[in-house]
C-alpha cells in the first residue's frame, strides 16, 4: 500500500528548473565580507575590557565590607558557607518536586569558608605571637564556644568600623574574631590574600574558585556590577560592561529570571534550567513532534521566502 504524503514530514519531488550556482565563489565572498565587516566593527566599537578586581582592591576600597564578609566566612554565615552542593553541606539544595540533582551529586568542590578563606591564609603568614594565639584560640575552641562568639559577633557585625588601619568590632564577647579579622584585612590590603587564595593548590594554578567565591560573598563586586547594569534584575549575565550587545542570544534564559515564580522561588535557578531544558528539547525535536512541526505550514511565512517559486507556478 502506498504511504500517504505527510506535508510536514515529506517533501515533494522537485522537477523544476535549476540555476547556475558557484558554491566556492559564494563562500569566498561571504568570508571576505564578514571579515571586512568584523574589522570595521572592531575599529569603530572596539571591545570592553574592564580590569578584574582583586581582594586587594576590594579591601582597600571598602575595608568594612571586606571585614564583615570575612567575619561571615569565619563564623559560617556567608552565602558560600550556607550554599550547599557542590561546595559543602551548609545549605538546602534546589529542587523541582522530587528532582534535586544538586543534592544527588553532592559535594565535589569542597569549600570550608572558615578554613579556606580565613584560617589557612592567616597560617601562611610569617609567625606573629598575637596572630598565632588568636588562631590557636579559635581552632582549639569547642563548637559551642565558637557558636557563642559567632552569636555575639552577628549582633554587632553591622557596627564594625575601620579607622587607622584597624578593624574595630564593638563587643568584648567575640573571642579572637577581631584579631583574626584585623590580620586578615591587613593581609588582604597588602595583596597577600589574593596570592594565598589562588595558591592553595600548589605553585601552578589556573583555578580561581576560592577567590571568586570570596569576592561574590561581599557587597563590593555586586555593587560594581549593578553600576555597570549587570545586576540579576538588569538582565544580568547576558550583558557586559559598557554599551555592548553581550550574549544577546541568552535573552530567553535571562528573561525567566525577571518574572515570577522564577525570581521569587528558592529554587529559581533550577526552575529556569528545567524550563530551558524542556524548550531546548522541543527545539531539537521539532521534526518529530506532531502539531509543533505543522506550525511553519500554518504560519505561511514560507510563501514569502518562496514567493518567486509560487509566482512562476501560477
Amino acid at each position, binding site marked *: 500500500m502506498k504511504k500517504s504524503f505527510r506535508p510536514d514530514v515529506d517533501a*515533494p519531488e522537485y522537477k523544476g528548473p535549476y540555476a547556475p550556482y558557484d558554491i566556492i565563489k559564494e563562500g569566498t565572498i561571504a568570508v571576505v565580507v564578514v571579515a571586512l565587516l568584523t574589522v570595521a566593527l572592531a575599529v569603530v566599537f572596539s571591545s570592553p575590557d574592564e580590569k578584574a578586581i582583586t581582594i586587594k582592591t576590594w579591601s582597600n576600597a571598602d575595608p568594612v565590607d571586606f571585614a564583615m564578609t570575612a567575619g561571615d566566612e569565619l563564623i559560617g554565615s556567608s552565602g558560600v558557607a550556607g550554599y550547599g552542593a557542590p561546595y559543602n553541606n551548609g545549605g538546602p539544595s534546589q529542587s523541582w518536586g522530587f528532582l534535586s540533582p544538586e543534592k544527588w551529586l553532592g559535594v565535589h568542590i569542597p569549600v570550608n569558608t572558615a578554613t579556606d578563606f580565613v584560617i589557612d591564609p592567616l597560617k601562611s603568614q610569617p609567625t606573629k605571637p598575637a596572630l598565632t594565639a588568636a588562631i590557636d584560640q579559635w581552632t582549639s575552641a569547642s563548637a559551642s564556644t565558637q557558636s557563642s562568639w559567632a552569636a555575639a559577633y552577628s549582633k554587632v557585625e553591622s557596627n564594625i568600623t575601620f579607622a587607622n588601619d584597624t578593624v574595630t568590632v564593638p563587643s568584648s564577647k567575640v573571642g579572637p574574631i577581631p584579631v583574626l579579622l584585623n590580620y586578615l584585612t591587613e593581609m588582604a590590603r597588602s595583596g597577600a590574600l589574593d596570592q594565598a587564595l589562588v595558591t592553595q593548590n600548589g605553585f601552578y594554578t589556573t583555578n580561581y574558585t576560592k577567590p571568586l567565591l570570596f569576592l561574590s560573598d561581599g557587597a563590593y563586586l555586586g555593587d560594581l556590577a549593578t553600576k555597570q547594569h549587570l545586576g540579576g534584575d538588569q538582565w*544580568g549575565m547576558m550583558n557586559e560592561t559598557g554599551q555592548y550587545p553581550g550574549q544577546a542570544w541568552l535573552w530567553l534564559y535571562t528573561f525567566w529570571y525577571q518574572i515570577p515564580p522564577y525570581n521569587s522561588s528558592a529554587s529559581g535557578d533550577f526552575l529556569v534550567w528545567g524550563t530551558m531544558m524542556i524548550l531546548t528539547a522541543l527545539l531539537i525535536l521539532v521534526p518529530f513532534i506532531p502539531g509543533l512541526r505543522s506550525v511553519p505550514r500554518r504560519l505561511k*511565512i514560507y510563501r514569502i521566502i518562496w514567493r518567486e517559486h509560487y509566482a512562476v507556478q501560477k
Partner: protein
Amino acid sequence: MSTTEIDRQWTSRLRKRVVGKLPPDKMLPDTQPAYVASWIYVFGVTTMAALFVVIGTGCILALDGPQWWHSSAFGHFINSMHLWSVEIFFFAMVIHLWGKFAMAAWRGGRSLTWVTGAVTFLVSILTGFTGYVSQTNFDSQWIATQAKDGINSTGGGAFFNVLNLGQMLMWHIVLLPIGAVVLTALHVVMVRVKGVVPPFEDNASEVSA
C-alpha cells in the same frame, strides 16, 4: 591481489559508500534548484564565514596566551574582531535557524540535518559562554559568579566549574570548538547529501497533517 580482495578492503568500501552518498557534483554543485532564490539562504553561509573568522581570530589570540590582549593594542584589536565576529555568527545563525523553521527544512528525510543544526546552536552558546568567563577581566568575574548558581542547581557544577579558569579556557579553545566544527561539517554534508528542502506544495496550508 584479486579484484574481490580489493572490493573487500575497508578503504575501498568506505570510498564507494562516500562517493555513492556524496558524489563530487553534489559536494561541490554548480547548479541549484531555482527555488533557492531568497536572501534567507545567505545566512547559512554567513554563519560559516563568521565561524571561520571567529576561529582565525581565536587562533591569533591563542598565540601569546590568555592575558596578552589586555596589554597589547594589537591584541585588543584582535579581541575586538573575535567579539564582533561572534556577534555576527550568532546573528546570522539565529536568522538561519528561524528561516529554516519557517521552511520546515526537516521535511523529506532531513530531520537529522535539523537536529545537528540545533545542537550546533547549543554547542555554540556554550562555546561563547566559556569565552566570556575566560576573558580574565571584570566581565568574566561577574558572569562566572552569576552563572555558577544556574549550573550548580542542575548538578552540573560538580563537573563543569565555571569559576575554574583553566577548565573553562580548555573547553573554550579545544573541546567545544572541535564539537562546533565537527557538527557544522556534519550539518553541511547532510545538506549536500539531501539537497535544499523543496517548497511546500502550493495548496499545502489547506492540507491537514
